[in-house]
Each structure stands twice: as C-alpha cells, then as structure tokens.
C-alpha cells in the first residue's frame, strides 16, 4: 500500500453551505504531508471525515486502506490525532488524560511518554482546567506522539506553543520521519513549519485542493524576486513576458519574474551590465499569499 490517505472528489455539505467541494488529497505512506489553507477552507472538516466523525456526501475516501466511516474503530488503533482546539476534562490531570487516550487506542509506550514529557517540559500532575492553551496542546501532543502508530493526524498542532516548544515539536516530528514508516498529515498555518518538515503539501481553498506537490514543484509555479544595480537603463526588460512589477529607485531595479522566464530576464540584465544582484527564491509565504489574493479578486 503506497497511499495512507486517498481522497478523491470529496464533498461535504452543512445545510446550504458546501464545506468541501470536490477535494482531492493524496498522502503517501511514510511522508510528512502539509495541509495548508486559510481559516474556514475545510481543513478540519476533511480531518473529521478521515476520522469517521463526519460522513462525506460525495466522492471517495480511503484511510490506511479502509473506509474511515464504517471501519472507524479498527482504523483508529493505527493512528493518533491532535485536534486543533484541545480541551481537557477539567477534573482529570494531564498525565491521566495521556494514559487514558493511549489506552483507549490500545496502549502507549511509558518510556516514550516520560521522554516526551521531559522534552516538552510538561507537568502531568496539573488538573485539566488549570493548564494554559499551550500546555493543553502539549498534553495532546504527548498523548499522540507516545503511541506507536502508522499515521499521525495533526490539526494545527503548534498553535499556542512558544517558539522553543515549536522547535521541540519540529525535532520530534523529524525524528519520527526518519523512521521512514510513519505518515504524518500536518494541517498548519505556520508556513515555516511546513517548509521545514513536509515532503509534499496540498493547499486548499474553499473546499478544493488548489495546489498539490513537493515544495520544489510548487516553486515552479511561482516567481523569483530580483533586485539589481545596473550600469545602464534596463531597456526591453519591462516588455519581456514573465516579468512583473518592475520598479526603479536610486538606480536599483526590483522586479518579480516567473520561474520559466528567469533565463531571458537575466540575459537582458547581463546585456545592460550588472553591478550587483540579489535573487530571492519564492517562499511558501508568497505561494500562499498568491493563492489567498486570487481568492479576493
């Protein structure tokens, strides 16, 4: 089996609102897959369908080779889940919640649990109602990461964590990834995190997947920013196909160029004469913003 998650044309409606409108999502076994989208794009709905908490209205979906709705309990032994909004039982301690969720799934590794508590600097003796948002998130993360499972489904797992703990989270996920047999679906807003961890990613917007592929694949779809000091006027550059937002200040020029128009643009610059040049590869941020802005138009 090469695909841990295989959803095609997924449709989910809530009354008149269409939350998922033909969503495709393929996650290969052993990869860390980023799942990006603005608020309300349908990330959490998709995850709830994958967990059999909600039933889809159209399309097909397979999870670890099974039907997530009808085989939910059997499939859940093989996965763990960190919800986006972690709430704990007010009168149970963090340690009790970690043990309970692990056992309800079929067991967890006590040594791994102790190690994770140490790394995340979490006091497991506090009652659920007294934890801060970040600490509640840590409880859910320890509960999920201490289990030996095939698939981790993480819904914005670092929201509320401080930068140090975000770093710990990244290290732990990279460690999991290095084992090679664990699949991670990571829904996130934090692009640096996705950039650092994910092999491939899917961007969704209004219930549809708008981009999917490796980060490099997606970079081809976007633009590189160039900043240069020239010896002469940049004749002919403005009319070159693929060059955008050309502007000049203090003898420096700045412009964005489509990845496949990079070569002719550079040749034009060289012809004029280049004193200095800075080229910035497209960041995931820009990729994401471009999708976003297309939204607003």
């Amino acid at each position: 089996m090469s695909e841990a998650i295989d959803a095609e044309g997924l449709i989910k409606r809530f009354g008149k609102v269409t939350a998922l409108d033909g969503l495709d999502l393929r996650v290969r076994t052993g990869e860390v897959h980023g799942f990006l989208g603005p608020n309300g794009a349908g990330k959490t709905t998709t995850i709830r369908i994958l967990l059999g908490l909600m039933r889809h209205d159209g399309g097909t979906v397979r999870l670890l080779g099974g039907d997530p709705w009808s085989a939910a309990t059997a499939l859940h032994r093989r996965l763990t889940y960190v919800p986006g909004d972690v709430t704990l039982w007010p009168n149970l301690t963090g340690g009790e919640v970690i043990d309970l969720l692990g056992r309800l799934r079929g067991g967890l590794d006590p040594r791994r649990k102790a190690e994770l508590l140490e790394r995340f600097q979490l006091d497991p003796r506090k009652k659920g109602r007294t934890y801060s948002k970040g600490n509640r998130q840590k409880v859910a993360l320890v509960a999920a990461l201490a289990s030996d499972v095939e698939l981790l489904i993480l819904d914005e797992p670092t929201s509320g964590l401080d930068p140090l703990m975000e770093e710990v989270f990244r290290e732990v996920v990279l460690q999991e990834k290095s084992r090679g047999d664990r699949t991670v679906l990571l829904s996130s807003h934090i692009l640096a995190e996705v950039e650092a961890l994910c092999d491939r990613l899917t961007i969704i917007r209004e219930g549809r997947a708008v981009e999917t592929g490796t980060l490099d694949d997606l970079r081809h779809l976007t633009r590189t920013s160039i900043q240069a000091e020239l010896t002469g006027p940049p004749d002919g550059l403005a009319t070159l196909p693929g060059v955008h937002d050309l502007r000049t200040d203090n003898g420096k020029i700045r412009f964005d160029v489509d990845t496949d128009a990079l070569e002719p643009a550079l040749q034009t610059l060289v012809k004029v004469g280049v004193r200095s040049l800075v080229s910035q590869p497209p960041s995931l941020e820009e990729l994401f913003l471009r999708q976003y802005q297309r939204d607003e138009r």
Partner: protein
Amino acid sequence: MTGTGRLIRLILRRDRVILPIWILVLGLLPIGTFNSFQGLFPTDAERINFAHVSAGNAGFVALYGLLRGDSFAALTSWRVGFGTVMIGLAALLTVIRHTRADEEAGRTELIGSTVVGRHAPLAAALITTAGASLLTGLLIFASLAGKSGSVSGSLAFGAEFVAAGWIFAAIAAITAQLTGSARSARSIAIAVLGASYALRVGGDISALGTGSLSWLSWVSPIGWVTHIFPYGALNWWPVVLSALLTAVAIAVAVDLRGRRDLGDGLFAARLGRANATPSLRTPLALAWRLHRGLLIGWTIGLGLLGLIFGGVGGSVLDIAKDNKGLSDIFARLGGSDQIVDSYLAGTAGIVGLIAACYAVQATLRLREEETTGHAEAVLATSVSRLAWAGSHLLFSLLGPALALFAEGVVTGLVYTQGDFGDILGGVMLQLPAVWVLAAVAVLIFGLLPRWSLAAWAAPAACLLILLVGETLQLNHWLLDISPFTHVPRLPGGAVSATPVLTMLAVALVVGVAGLAGLRRRNIPD
C-alpha cells in the same frame, strides 16, 4: 462597576427568548390557577370543603405547603407555592450562566480587558435577574390585585416570588465564586435550593402533626416565603428576612470576588496524579470519573429527602388521630391508613420526578462532552460511538435507580409503622417513568443534538402536569402524556404489570431510535 449597563444589555440580548418565557410562565401561573379554581368550585361550600380537606392532607402539604384560608386567592397562593422553587431555580441558573459559566469559557477575560469594572459582570447578572424576578412579581400583583379582592395580599403574593428569586440569585452569586467550574457552582446552588425545599416539606408536615419539627421551615428560605400566606395570615416579615439575606449574600459574593483572581475558585486547585491508575483504561472507567460526583450527590440528596419524608410520616398519622373533624373526612376517604398510604405514594411521585431530573442531567453529559470537544478526542481512539454513549447511559439509567433505592430504603426504615416492601416498591416503581424521560433525552441528543437542552422540557412538563393538571382540569390525554400519570401507586394501590412493561418498551424504543440517530450523524454537530 463601570460598564454594567452595557453588560446588562448583552445579557438581555443573549437571553431574549428564555427570560420572557420564565417571566410570563411564572407570572401568569397564579392567575391561570385562580381562574381554573373558579371553574372547579362553583359554590362556596364546595370550595370551603376542598380547602379543609386539602389543609389536612399531608401529601398536598408536602407538595404545595401549608394552606391558610379558604378563599380562591388563598387556594391559588397555596397551590402555586412550588412556583417559588421554580423561580429560585430560574434565578440561580441565570446568574451562574452570566458569571461563572462565562468566566470558565474565557468570555469574561475578553470582556474584562475592555473598559469594564471587576464587579460589573456579577452586578449585571444580579441586576438583570433581580429585575426579571421583580417583573414576575409585578405580573402576579397586577393580574390578581383586582380579582382576588385584596390589594395588599396580592402585593405580598408578588413579593413572595420576588423574594425567592432574589435570595437564590444572591446564593448563586456566592456559589459562582467558590469553584472554577460552572457545573459545580450550579450543583451547589441547586443543592441549597433542594435542601430549602426539603426542609420546608419537613417543617410543614410536622406543623400538621405534633409540630416538634416545625422549626425546620424557618431555616429554609423557601419555608420563609411560603409562610407569607398573602391571603391568609399575611406575614410581611419573611419579606424583610429575605431582603436581609439577599443583601448579606450579595455582600459576601462581592467580598469573595474581590479576594480571588479571574478564573480561580476560592478553593485552590491541587496537584493530582502524574499517571492514570491502571483501571482508567475503558470508556466506562472514564464515565465513572465524570459521573461519580453527580451519582454520589444525588444519592445522598435523595437519601436525605427520604429521611424527611419518612420522618414526617408519623405526623401524618397524628393528624388523623388529633382532629375529630378531619378524621371524619379521612374515614370517608377510607380511613387513616389510606391517608398515610396516599401521602407515601404522593411523595414517591415527587421523588420519581426528582430522579428524572437526574436522569436527564446525566444523559445530557453526552452533549456536553460533544460540545466541549472531549467526545472527538475519545472517538478518535478505537472507541465506537455506541460504547462511548453506552458508558454514559449506564449512569443515566442506573444512577437514578440507586438514588431512588436510597430514598426508598431510608423512608422505609425511618417510617417504622409502614410496610417496608411497599414503601420501597412504590419508589422503585417510578424507575420506568424515569427511564422514559431519559430515553427522550437520548432521542433529542441523537436526532436533534442542537436542541438537546429541550430535553429539560420533559420533566418540566411532567412537573406542571403533576402540580396543576387536576386543578386546570386538563384533558385526560394531556395528563396521560406524563409517564408519571401511569405509575402504579404504592403503598395502597394495586400494582399491574401492563403500565410498567409499556413504559419499559417505550423507553427502549425511544432510546434505541436516539442511538440509531447518533450512529449516523456528524460529531460534533
């Protein structure tokens, strides 16, 4: 106090449906009862006779309180005496909803960061609730002042309801400061209300007989306000007492609020276990952790009620012995045994309804687990929906059984002149009716989860049917809606299996339909 006005407007906006409902229902209940009494007793003789019989009927006195006077107005104020408990409940729920519940959910923090004083949320909740109680009282006054023939009596009758509302609003203001969770705050306040009612029952029944325990009514706020007797003796000083208690309780609440930080209770949170005990490994073990406080509380509460109901049983017997006129009436009704039996069977019905409230509360824990996101965490493990729901339902079915059992056993042991088996049996026979209401809650939760709170309408309707059904001469089919109408009466009645089996079948079918809905729907919905 800055910002109180704005917060009051926010409360009025959030409660724009429920506030008018409780003001209108409770404010118009008296005039409705008054009108139906007029229809029920066309002649003075009939009315006076009914008043005399009722005044000595221990079952009636337990349920409604002491009756002073025999006018229509006096009968009305007596019959809706339980309304003081209902307005107390409405008031305490409103106050906690807008204080501790908001604080626990983090909304108070959001509001507290704006230009709003520390005491403003509490002040706004209290002012709104006090105002709603006042409106209820004014409705009662306005609707009865002309008809009852006594303006001062109607003023006192209105004041009776206002006082009950204010006292329990103020008590809720205190309990909201004690713990970090709205649920415990609510439970403590409801326990105080329940204890007030139980003490009133004990004191009043005792007053009917030897009177040795009649002081019990005077340690209970519900006892105070029902002893105003607006159209009988007309005491004003319970109103003064109530105003004093309200003022003191509010002062205590404000003082407690000033001593603590936002989000904290008065009792500091302690550290707990770092690891779960080995037994915490199944959905049932989790449900036990979540339900055990409720189970213990209700069992002790109903056990104490059994102590009171059983303890005053002797007084009921004395009434028949001491009063020549009354014993004649009782003899016509079938002798003094019959009177005690009818009292015991009547109290069993009350206990059944109380247990039904527990059953609904326990069932609605499922919805609470769903809306808080806990259900999602559990169902994402290899726990099936039925196992999850079943583990909670075990407590909503067997919890009330245990609480009823405690009440029946205590009543039977304390009231030594009765047949233990019949007394316990009469209480346990309520169980099928209790389960029907639990099943209704499951049905709503399964099919219309967003309407889950509507499950409370079932015990509320049964209570109304019990309290005013006969008075209002409701159609028989309307009375039949309440499963409690069909419970065989013990001691003293004949037990037939048909209604019991029918109710069990209804509970089963309705409950299974609800679970079938749960299996198919979105979680969370």
